[in-house]
């Protein structure tokens, strides 16, 4: 029995010492947080970086863009992350928060773009949708079809009820759940833009912003919009089986499955890499990451990780990120960013 007690005491002491000796530890692994949309690209770069250099493989947490920036802006010091990924640009308020917490010099890197597509089976008719039609098909409340100035619960059940040019099939769209970044972007880029095209709702944006947000961002819950899980593979499989269903997902999944599915054109624009990177395709967003300059030189490898990320073999037209679905920025812009990144040019706050 005494042996057991001795062992127990040792273990407890060891635990206590370990617990107390933690703070202010040097870190030799780059810590990256942020967007789940950038996560698949950043992880590929990180793994290559770890494999092909002497540095440790960076650790990447998928916290969402907002969560990542919040962690990033908490301060300087190795307990805070070095880099944060974002599927939208940093907001002015976030920049100010960073400044207030002593994170003065931040380098911004735009890595490319990502498009969100609405696709259906190749056996079905290819659709041409406008943002307005997308809003009418999927919103919870829409302006009354008789033209009066009020909102009613979405009455449309068939595509041709929205516009006679659309086919006579039931509206059935599978999309990501609210926890998904793709859903956030779709709501913001497609639903909200379509929503604003109704004068009565656009008016609301000035008068009652909360109401405007609720109207524009609420997806319908009466059946035609089906929330699928986070697993976009499942949506693609369902589309192949059921030609009358549309699916909403990232461009990379369209690219992986071009044999089975086709994308609808939005406002007449086909989601091609060119159209997405030049912002012609309306449901597209830029992807970014932000670097804390104060950590460069303190945590080893940050500079090298960034130059790996911004080399032509990575984010260029034939880089390996294209294989995972990144849409590269135009070459002259890439060159400009790569140059700024090399000098770690800090943001001024005015660009936001």
């Amino acid at each position, binding site marked *: *029995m005494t042996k057991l007690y001795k062992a*127990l*005491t040792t*273990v*407890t002491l*060891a*635990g206590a010492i*370990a*617990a107390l000796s*933690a*703070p*202010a*530890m040097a*870190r030799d*692994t780059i*810590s990256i*947080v942020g967007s789940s949309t950038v*996560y*698949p690209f950043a*992880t*590929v770069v*990180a*793994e*290559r970086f*770890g*494999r*092909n250099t002497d540095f*440790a*493989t960076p*650790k*990447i*947490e*998928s916290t969402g863009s907002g969560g990542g920036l919040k962690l990033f802006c908490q301060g300087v010091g*190795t*307990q805070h*992350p070095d880099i944060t990924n974002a599927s939208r640009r940093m907001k002015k308020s976030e920049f100010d928060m960073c400044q207030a917490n002593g994170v003065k010099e931040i380098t911004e890197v735009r890595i490319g773009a990502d498009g969100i597509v609405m696709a259906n089976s190749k056996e079905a008719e290819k659709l041409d949708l406008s943002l307005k039609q997308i809003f009418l098909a999927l919103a919870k409340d829409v302006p009354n079809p008789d033209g009066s100035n009020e909102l009613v619960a979405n009455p449309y059940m068939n595509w041709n009820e929205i516009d006679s040019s659309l086919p006579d099939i039931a509206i059935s769209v599978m999309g990501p759940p609210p926890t998904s970044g793709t859903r956030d972007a779709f709501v913001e880029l497609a639903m909200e833009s379509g929503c604003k095209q109704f004068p009565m709702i656009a008016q609301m944006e000035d008068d009652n912003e909360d109401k405007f947000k609720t109207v524009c961002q609420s997806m319908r819950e009466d059946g035609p919009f089906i929330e699928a899980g*986070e*697993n*976009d*593979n499942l949506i*693609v*499989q369902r589309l*192949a089986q059921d030609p009358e269903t549309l699916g909403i997902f990232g461009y*990379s*999944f369209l690219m*992986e*499955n071009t*044999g*089975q599915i086709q994308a609808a054109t939005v406002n007449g624009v086909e989601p091609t890499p060119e159209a997405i990177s030049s912002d012609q395709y309306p449901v597209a967003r830029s992807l970014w990451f932000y670097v804390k300059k104060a950590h460069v030189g303190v945590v080893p490898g940050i500079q090298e990780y960034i130059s790996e990320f911004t080399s032509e073999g990575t984010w260029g037209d034939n880089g*390996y990120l294209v294989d995972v679905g990144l849409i590269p920025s135009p070459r002259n812009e890439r060159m400009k960013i790569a140059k700024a990144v090399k000098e770690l040019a800090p943001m001024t706050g005015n660009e936001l």
Partner: protein
Amino acid sequence: MTDQRSQAEIVRKSLKRRYRTERRFRLYGILAIFIALASLFILFADIISKGHTGFVKTTITLEVTLDSGMMYLDDPTDKDQWSSADFKAPIIAALQAQVPEAASAAEKRELGRFLGTFADSEIRDLLTKNPELLNTTQTIEFPAHDRVSVYVKHADNPRYSIKLSEQQQRWVDELLQKGIIDTSFNDVLFSRGDSREPANAGVLGAIVGSLLTMLVTLAISFPVGISAAVYLEEFAPQNKLTDFIEVNINNLAAVPSIIFGLLGLAVFINLFGMPRSVPVVGGLVLALMTLPTIIISSRAAIKSVPPSIREAAEGVGASKMQVVLHHVVPLAMPGMLTGSIIGMAQALGETAPLLLIGMVAFIVDVPDGLFSSATVLPVQIYLWASSSEQGFVELASAAIMVLLTFMIIMNALAIWLRKRLERRW
């Protein structure tokens, strides 16, 4: 008399109905067990049917001539030459020798895509370690790309979509016949950390992370839990304060685990400044979560020690402390251990509290200490299940099987300890 007879008659009449009710009741019980077993069976069947292929890897074995001219490499130890060297060229040449049909540059590139992403890094690492191998011919096994692997393993499974063109499929079939492409036991799964490529991904990092985390959890929750239980049961005065503590411990056992994660974030990371994603913080959070379970089960174990033992010890003049440490705790130990192991098994399967302290992360390197970044098994399963590459579907199920194996071992250990150490009165 007449009354009694009629009563007996009533009993006899109702007898049939009562037997019937009893049979029905038993039937419900059997049905309930059947439903539970059936769902368990369906769960296992689904996991095993999806996951058994995760234990098989697809490899491409080639006789590669490590020609220095082909690789533009004179000295493999000179790191400056790495960036200008082409480590992939000899592999593609070796592959092309097996598929003479692929002659054009584009076709050769297609062939190169059969290989996993890190095939060239493997050549580089091999040459850096053994520079004398330059200009020799070596037989090297490469992991096949996910696309090839899916085709080889799941060609006739409609759940998977084949992403090879018909020409590529023909080449793969040819290589399969020659034995160049082959399947074998997936040792990568148990010897590597996470990867974005299914062929290179393993659970070793997660297993080590889980073990380190559990070590911290055990080191803290077991002694603290047992001390608390012993004090509350044996020494604490019966008053409002101890009642209050007792109610709160019982309450804590029912608090959702994510709350402990929030607590861990606020206290250990923000207040004490501990790093994110490390096993120490994970272990501390899970220790807090397991404490109530251990305290409650330990108190029950102490309560079940018969008073006669205490009285006998006191009778021969033992002090209160001697009674507790020499007689009560040893006899209650089997129950305490069982409770602790069940609490640990619970903690092993937990992900929610770890999300907030940064252990849900992409971590490639296998952790080497309590303060290096780590993730745990259930988190690894979650990360793989939400990945877009098809090869991760089977890997996630395979990882579930690994996790279940650990759970079964822990629970079996709890039962064995109880059976072995328990004393009956």
